[in-house]
């Protein structure tokens, strides 16, 4: 059993963090204030001394390290978020095309996946609605068949990249019955008639440069072939990949979300440690020694989360069933991470929460990580079902 990373991955991550915390982090405040990525994002990204993994640039591929893609992802997500979450968002092409890849027909993949990989477009993901969060069965947006078309009607919120994406994968219900299995995924391209951007970017607590849009589908007519997985035969409708299939590809991302929280908390802890050390003489000796203990305790807390993340991804690389372990990783990391940042601000005192430092931003950014892709409560539900069967935690 080993708990070290390869020298290659260690060096890659060190270089990434070095550049990320000096160069990229310099744009963090601006991204927050302007609720948008920096205008010269591409130039900033090009200045990175290591590849960042942008699919459209073959030479930007992440290094092929002996650790495997899973642990590499853990370290990559942690290091990117360590720089600042805006960097994460700048590399976020969206997830719509992953859904296409997961449940689309070969023709659909060719049409909507390949170009994104080749040319680097962005894709949107429309699932949440004002009345439907964790309970996806409550999706109320409808798709009604009309000859060779589907007519989409409804509202979406939290639609990531909704206002700028080349297309949006939107989930809608094709019948009132059938629960989740009646919810299917449809591709709606940008500017398509009937699709209105109600709000390009929602006003959020944090992660403000992450564009989440509110969209209205007002009798939006799309070709029948835009239903993902539809092979031209309507008798397939019940088996056509829908909500669950569309989401399954996202489950693997849970340890990565946790890694992001650990990256942000680690940045906070390192910054705080450096600032406190400069001010050491200002602390009473007893208090200083307490603080040194606290910093170590926080570092161990983050490290425990990191190991859980690595485990989940290491298992994934081996095609081991890691559903419980992925949930554990996501349930554990974010909950500890915001607590670490809060404690860092407390230790720094009144100046710790001003906009002169990034901790206040990170404390805002990080909160969503215990919510999206499954709240901490949903993670506990999944873990307890793993322990106690499918009826567990139903109430």
């Amino acid at each position, binding site marked *: 059993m080993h708990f070290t990373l390869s020298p290659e991955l260690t060096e890659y991550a060190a270089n990434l963090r070095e550049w990320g915390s000096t160069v990229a982090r310099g744009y963090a405040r601006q991204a927050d204030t302007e609720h948008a990525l920096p205008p010269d994002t591409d130039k900033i990204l090009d200045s990175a001394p290591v590849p960042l993994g942008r699919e459209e640039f073959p030479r930007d591929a992440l290094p092929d390290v002996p650790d495997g893609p899973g642990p590499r992802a853990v370290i990559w997500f942690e290091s990117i978020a360590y720089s600042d979450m805006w960097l994460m968002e700048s590399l976020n092409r969206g997830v719509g095309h992953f859904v296409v890849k997961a449940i689309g027909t070969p023709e659909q993949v060719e049409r909507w996946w390949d170009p994104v990989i080749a040319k680097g477009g962005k894709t949107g993901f429309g699932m*949440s609605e004002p009345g439907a969060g964790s309970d996806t069965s409550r999706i109320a947006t409808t798709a009604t068949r009309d000859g060779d078309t589907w007519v989409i009607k409804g509202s979406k919120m939290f639609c990531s990249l909704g206002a700028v994406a080349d297309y949006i994968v939107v989930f809608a219900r094709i019948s009132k019955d059938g629960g989740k299995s009646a919810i299917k995924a449809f591709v709606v391209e940008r500017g398509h008639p009937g699709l209105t951007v109600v709000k390009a970017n929602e006003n959020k607590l944090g992660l403000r440069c992450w564009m989440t849009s509110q969209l209205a589908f007002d009798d939006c007519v799309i070709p029948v072939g835009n239903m993902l997985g539809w092979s031209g035969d309507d008798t397939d409708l019940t088996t056509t990949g829908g909500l669950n299939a569309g989401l399954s590809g996202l489950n693997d991302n849970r340890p990565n979300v946790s890694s992001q929280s650990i990256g942000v908390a680690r940045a906070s802890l390192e910054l705080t440690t450096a600032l406190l050390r400069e001010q050491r003489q200002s602390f009473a000796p007893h208090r200083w020694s307490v603080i040194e203990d606290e910093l170590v305790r926080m570092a161990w807390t983050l490290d425990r989360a990191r190991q859980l993340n690595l485990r989940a991804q290491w298992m994934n690389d081996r095609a081991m069933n890691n559903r419980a372990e992925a949930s554990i990783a996501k349930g554990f990391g974010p909950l500890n991470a915001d607590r670490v940042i*809060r404690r860092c601000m407390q230790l720094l*005192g009144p100046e710790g929460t001003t*906009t002169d430092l990034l901790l206040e931003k990170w404390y*805002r950014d990080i909160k969503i990580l215990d919510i999206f892709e499954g709240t901490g409560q949903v993670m506990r539900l999944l873990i307890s079902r793993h322990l106690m069967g499918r009826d567990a935690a139903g*109430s």
Partner: protein
Amino acid sequence: MTFDLTLSEEQDAVRDLARILADDAVSPAAPEAEAARGVADALWRTLLSTGLTAPVAPEHGGGGVPDGTSRLLAVEGLGFGDAAIAASAFWSGNAALLIGSCGTAEQRDAMLPAFVTDTELRAAVALYEGFGRAPSEYRTTIQAEGDRWRVRGRKTGVPLTAGGGPLIVVGTDPSAGDRLRAAVIPADDGQGEGGQGGVTVTASSPHLGLDAAPMSTVDLDVTVGERHLLGGPDADDAALAHEVSMARLTTAALAIGCAQRACEYASGYATERTAFGRPISVFQGVAFLMADARMRIDAARLQVWQAAAGLETTEAAGTERAVSHAVAYATSIASEVTRDCVQVLGGHGFLADHPVERWYRATASLTALDFDPTCLAFTPAL
């Protein structure tokens, strides 16, 4: 005296008035005050006119100075409306209380009437220094130098005195056994009275969620005449310690008011929001978060009240630690409570459409203002 939570008629009235103000005036003004980074003059006048925020005795034109319990009820009540607006108003008002309790007759006559007549006046007490220091540990010194008094040190989290009211600095006097002293820094003379030194006020960047209560860092090396020494050379330092403790407890009461509001808001949301066919309040994973919140809030409130009551009865040294513990606990649980309230709202909690995210921010700033890490330790959530 025995354990007794009975409120006097006056205290009851204060609580009711504060709640009405919170609902009608403070809460609705929160978004605008945050955007404007300050409390609008009209609201400021309203708050001042109630006599709640900057109480002044009748002989100086005010409506009277309520007792400590009333003060805490008022602070929590307005904090329920909005922590930043309430902070701004009460932190200014703390200066009036300090002058009223600790000033000489001349000082009271000179400074107090303005708190009633000047409806735009913003005053400040410079307390905090960071580093977990309690008042007896403040490194800002106020000590005699010839026939003048030299004030030296650095204060952070000082309310901005944009309105031109007095700035009162609290420090220790190393020549007198580190006793607590307070000096009024003349507001009209940025270079120090007589040019002997300087006062540099550096406006801080906004504090997370407290945009409407702008603060500053103040660097002082200035000498002032004896008439600027609050209460004079022989001032009652126990009375000063008392008022300083009450000022510190203001921060705790603000946090409690904010957490209480968040708990009520999220509880209400949970009864209305449905998932899996039922209101989410039926799920113990949600409901128990709110039950824990309620327990913590109640415990914190009693501890703060107890610390305030202890100021009347206990030795100063004991009360200072008691105040540090009360502030650390109240503000920390307020942060955790508001965090859990955002969680109850899920993705909606992350949107500015709901005020919970503001409370999440504001309590974080409140808990960093006056935090002693020896009072409450970090432990992992899991």
